[in-house]
């Protein structure tokens, strides 16, 4: 299947870039390519029902565009600056809303964000990977920023793990699942998190985000956009993996979210320009062949000295429990 056969929906931009060109020439003998959709939306604050409808719409559009995976931003079902709304919009895994959303993942895998409530009444900033009609993997944000304009740890509980998982991506009929891992927004600012996922064997970082735009004094680009540009390129290149970054747009209480969703290839290059700052669904074709080529050119993961890392970590643990 090529992208021209995929008949993108009206507001669906076609995938492009060097990776897409190469993927289109690969044979069907072993499927190595997958179309990923980035749903760069502006969730309505606190309105789960409206946001759920929007998710279902865009999942359909992504599917019509040939996508095997659609990634929504952090807290895409609820909006970001929730404050005391956190317990009011929280969903349990077995809730009707999450089950409805999961049911929509039969043909297209879905990554969506919500406040996830546990049986012991903790509220997590979570991104759920749904596939085959069910919740397949859950990542609870580990690093909850509580400084500057952020107040997450006041309202939410910290996650305690970074784990690779097998992303089925069944619509693309890969010869085997892709190994993926999720980092939510602030998780990305801690390189140990990315390193753990890489060590756990991933080839695909999924990074939902609700990044508020700020830092306009430093020239023409937003300070936050520059930082994410550096991080997304660096992780993709150093861990020779694809990185899907989906940030939201829109305003909450005067704070604007800057969009800029993109896919970075395992060579550290963006597949296309970052998405402009408005609601849109963007498709990118990713190809496992590019991961293989990047790892041949730069066998960084092969050469990683986990023994040295472990020994030094043990030494530091003995010296200072804070490390």
């Amino acid at each position: 299947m090529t992208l021209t056969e995929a008949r993108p929906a009206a507001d669906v931009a076609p995938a492009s870039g060097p990776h897409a060109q190469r993927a289109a020439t690969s044979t069907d003998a072993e499927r190595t390519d997958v179309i990923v959709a980035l749903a760069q939306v502006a969730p309505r604050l606190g309105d789960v029902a409206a946001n759920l409808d929007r998710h279902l719409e865009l999942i359909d559009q992504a599917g019509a565009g040939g996508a095997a995976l659609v990634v929504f931003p952090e807290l895409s079902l609820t909006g970001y600056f929730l404050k005391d709304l956190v317990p009011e919009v929280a969903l349990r895994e077995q809730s009707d809303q999450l089950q409805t959303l999961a049911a929509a993942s039969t043909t297209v895998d879905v990554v969506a964000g919500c406040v996830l409530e546990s049986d012991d009444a903790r509220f997590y900033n979570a991104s759920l990977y749904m596939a085959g009609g069910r919740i397949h993997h859950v990542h609870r944000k580990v690093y909850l920023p509580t400084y500057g304009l952020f107040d997450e740890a006041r309202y939410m509980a910290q996650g305690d793990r970074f784990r690779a998982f097998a992303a089925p991506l069944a619509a693309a009929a890969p010869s085997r699942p892709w190994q993926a891992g999720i980092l939510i927004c602030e998780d990305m600012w801690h390189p140990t998190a990315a390193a753990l996922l890489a060590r756990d064997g991933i080839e695909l970082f999924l990074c939902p985000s609700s990044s508020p735009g700020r830092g306009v004094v430093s020239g023409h680009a937003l300070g936050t956009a520059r930082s994410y540009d550096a991080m997304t390129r660096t992780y993709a290149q150093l861990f020779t993996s694809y990185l899907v970054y989906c940030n939201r747009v829109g305003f909450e209480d005067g704070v604007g979210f800057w969009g800029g969703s993109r896919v970075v290839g395992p060579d550290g290059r963006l597949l296309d320009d970052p998405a402009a700052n408005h609601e849109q669904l963007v498709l990118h074709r990713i190809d496992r062949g590019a991961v293989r080529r990047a790892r041949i050119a730069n066998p960084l993961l092969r050469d990683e000295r986990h023994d040295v890392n472990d020994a030094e970590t043990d030494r530091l643990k003995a010296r200072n429990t804070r490390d």
Partner: protein
Amino acid sequence: MVGDILVGFVRNEVRKVGFERVVVGLSGGVDSALSAAIACMALGPDNVLPILMPYRTSSSASEADARLVCEHLGMTPTVIDISPQVDVYFERFPDADRGRRGNKMARERMTILYDMSWAHGALVIGTSNKTELLLGYGTLFGDMASALNPLGDLYKTQVFALARSMDLPRTVIDKAPSADLWEGQSDEEELGFGYSLVDLVLYHMVDERCTKAELRSLGFEDAFVDDVARRVRGSQYKRRPPIIAKLSARTIDREFRYPRDWGT
């Protein structure tokens, strides 16, 4: 890029709460001209109601400049002379000083903007910049009152720069900033320093959180830094809602914390 963010801000925050139109008090100065320009780009000039509210001692050049801004942006001005309502009040207090009169004028203008807001189903757009807000150089519940303020995170120097980049009329940008509450009033004379200097101090003090020693090494005099810091501290009350006596376990704005966009 700053302009794009502010245009998006006005469009989004106005429409989200079910409004299409805004009302802005146009003084002939650069702040209100820039706020109006941003609103026009966000909502179209037909959805921006500029209200000119001169007092009898206001400079005629101010009104001419405000009309020029309207013409430039394609807005239709409404002029409301505030002299009668201000004068009838001060007939009771003929000895009132000019500070008191200036505050009264600012608050009369506020009541007119909010009346227009009700009459036309239009939100009040603020025009206070970050320099004024930090120094407390504004009238509480007067010119500081608004539903949304696109300029509140821009220093005066940045307001000038953005106004230039948006091609607002030069006379509005080039004249000396004045609240025009009495004849010959000048912001910079009244404050005792220029905006370009105080903006640099404020930027390093507030945005960069430099220590006093660091500010000194940047070349700012201790006495000036102290004066600016005192003004910022002393006007903190103007930037906060009124304080509430704590009684219950869930007091508004202390434990009862919801976003302003709640339910929009």
